[in-house]
């Protein structure tokens, strides 16, 4: 089984800073996403799975429409596998109700006038994200024990929580340590990949202009996110 741990907004400096050994593996580095005008989640994951820069195509759907992007498996490298399992990936099988609600709560947070109201909405927003994270984590751990030939687990927690809490270092460290423990449960060779990282704006977080990768097998240097379709296909042929 080839495994990809796809972690939205996993920040290179925090993976190293928190010494997350299972996320770093033997080789790790930053991805080059400079070809994209902005580090947009839907554009980057779409480009990852198709192996092509999909910015123009995804952005043509508009700010709201882009969240409904859904590529057919035939247009992705997942089609190379006989029995792939993909969990909650943007642009493929993203759980829309979950992520739509995240954006609704985010909007409510910024529209709220009082500090008390903001605090209450942030609590609801955080709880909503953590509850989803627990479900995805269980589904991923269960899938590791099945006979899939390819498994990709997409974890949105570092991005969702990071947008409203990135200045809370203790909370972010807890999330990174949890992701590190999830990586520790993988017994096969695996790739860790993020679409972008995160920069701190006070207590908030903004997407940074590079992503993260790691591997136990090979040093990929400073790859583009679109390179991974080929990298993973080659890995499959080697096996």
């Amino acid at each position, binding site marked *: 089984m080839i495994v990809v741990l796809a972690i939205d907004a996993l920040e290179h400096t925090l993976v190293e800073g928190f010494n997350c050994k299972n996320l770093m593996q033997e080789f790790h580095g930053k991805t080059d996403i400079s070809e994209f005008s*902005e*580090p*947009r*989640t*839907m554009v980057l994951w779409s480009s990852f799975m198709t192996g092509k820069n999909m910015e123009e195509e995804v952005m043509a759907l508009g*700010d*709201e429409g*882009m*969240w409904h992007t859904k590529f057919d498996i035939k247009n992705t490298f997942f089609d190379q596998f006989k029995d792939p399992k993909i969990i909650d990936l943007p642009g493929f099988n993203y759980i829309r109700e979950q992520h739509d609600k995240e*954006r609704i709560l*985010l*909007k409510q947070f*910024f529209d709220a006038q009082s*500090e008390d109201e*903001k605090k209450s909405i942030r*609590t609801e927003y*955080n*709880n909503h994200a*953590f509850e989803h*994270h*627990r479900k995805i984590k269980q589904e991923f751990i269960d899938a590791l024990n099945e006979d899939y030939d390819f498994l990709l687990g997409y974890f949105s927690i570092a991005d969702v929580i990071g*947008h409203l809490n990135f*200045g*809370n*270092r*203790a*909370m972010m*460290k*807890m*999330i990174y340590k*949890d992701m590190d423990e999830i990586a520790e449960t993988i017994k096969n060779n695996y790739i860790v990949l993020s679409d972008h990282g995160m920069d*701190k*704006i*006070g*207590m*908030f*977080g*903004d*997407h940074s202009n590079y992503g993260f990768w790691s591997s136990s097998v090979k040093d990929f240097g400073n790859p583009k996110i679109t390179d991974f379709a080929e990298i993973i296909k080659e890995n499959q042929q080697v096996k």
Partner: protein
Amino acid sequence: MSVEYGEIKIPIDLIKKIEERVKETEFESVDEYATFVLEEVVKDDDEEIEEVFSEEDEDKVKERLRALGYLD
């Protein structure tokens, strides 16, 4: 090697606040949360402190989230 545990006294009001905070996290108890925070303080006392809310930061991040398609 098993870990040995001891007791410390902290104000009840603080425990209640931690109980509220624990509900927003992956921690399962006040003990677990307090242990984690104290380890952080002891290990990383040169690390940055938690940032506080500012309207200027909020305006900046709102503008960025609009550019990224999260907000209208």
